[in-house]
């Protein structure tokens, strides 16, 4: 819907908080996050006249932010150290890992635990989880922000969730037996 288009400020400022949060997650540093957001807004403002009507402004802003990060010194360092064959995404089998009691515990676990697990995830997984769960973007929007096909969004997201779950599991074993509402434990009820 293009009727809402007004000024760059009117469109971009409402995204400020969420873009900053995303930038901080990527850079893991306040100063660098501020620089990244600042550069993103400068680039977006400069390129605003080429922003295509009818396309998603939010996804466009995230795309600029992410590209800016990936070409920064820190971003380049990360992409250079991540093996290129990290994922064979198109061929990735969307196998489902059955729910276990410990995943049920996630909602009750501390934010810190999930936050540190997210911090330790590879960049590709961390960013797609943030876009999907925190920004609540649709697959289409994520595909626009990350410039990847929707099939890749689905496979990468699924893999990111499995990785996060498996990394959280050891921390949650302790309380696993206390909740018995997950799969396989409720048949006798």
């Amino acid at each position, binding site marked *: *819907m*293009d*009727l*809402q*288009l*007004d*000024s*760059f*400020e009117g469109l*971009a*400022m409402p995204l*400020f*908080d969420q873009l*900053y*949060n995303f930038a*901080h*997650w990527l850079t893991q540093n*306040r100063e660098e*996050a*501020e620089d990244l*957001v*600042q550069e993103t*807004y*400068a680039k977006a*403002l400069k390129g*605003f*006249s080429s922003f295509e*009507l009818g396309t998603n402004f939010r996804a466009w802003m995230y795309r600029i932010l992410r590209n800016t990060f990936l070409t920064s010194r820190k971003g380049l360092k990360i992409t250079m150290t991540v093996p290129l064959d990290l994922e064979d995404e198109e061929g990735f089998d*969307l196998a*489902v890992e*059955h*729910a276990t009691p410990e*995943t*049920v515990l*996630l*909602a009750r*676990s501390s*934010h*810190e635990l*999930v*936050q540190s697990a*997210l911090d330790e995830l590879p960049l590709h997984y961390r960013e797609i*989880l*943030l876009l*999907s*769960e*925190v920004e*609540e973007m*649709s*697959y289409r929007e994520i595909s626009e922000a990350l410039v990847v096909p929707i099939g890749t969004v*689905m496979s990468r*997201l*699924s893999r990111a*969730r499995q990785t*996060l779950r498996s990394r959280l599991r050891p921390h949650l074993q302790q309380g696993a037996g206390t909740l018995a*509402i*997950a*799969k*396989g434990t*409720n048949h006798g009820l």
Partner: protein
Amino acid sequence: MVCEELEAKLDSYVDGEVPEQEMRTFDAHMRSCPSCSADALSRVQMKSAIHGAGKRYTPSAEFRKRMQQKIAAKPRRSFGLGWTFAAAAAAIIVIGALTSAYLGTRSGKDQVFSEIADLHVATLASSSPVDVISTDRHTVKPWFQGKIPFAFNLPELQNSEFSLLGGRMTYLEQTPGAHLIYDVRKHHISVFVFQERSLQARLDENPISPKQLPFTLETWTQGGLRYFVIGDASAADIDNLAKLFKAAV
């Protein structure tokens, strides 16, 4: 069978990314299958945990202020569509000037139609045509509560070619009313709703298309409310939208 199908699409299901029909099948299955519902539950909880944990950083007030100063007061951008509307508005002014000889003699009824056409064009030429932006009638309708002295129903648009873009408050003859904007095949159609008794001009009951206006317009009264449907879409489209409104009352 459904269990297997669902397993492969569980992530898409909890993300609300499967087609509506399939969603309903899965929803029904969830109610009767404890195993799949536990699976889905754990995934929803995982999403929720990340949602909470992911909102971690907030920009400082000082940084926000700095950014605002940097991008504030930049010249507003002219959009292609804005130009189209501006051109349409300019065309109306020219047409208005050319037909001004008529205007001196035209009836109060024609003046109302002209005013409605002006409201339609001026709104679309505006950089922010709608104050409530939503395609959902259940969002738009309540927005008018307390702003206009009457209530009205918006039609269900499913299986129709129309889509709701949003709404705003408007005034005709100093009386407040609702202005809704719809889209059909790239044409914008305005629907105005006022209280009949507040309008001074006596209008016909039957749909009419004033010849001096470059728009198709339909108007009728129903339940004490006066409706106007106007736009540059085909007369058939205008009539179809009018029918939807008549059926919604």
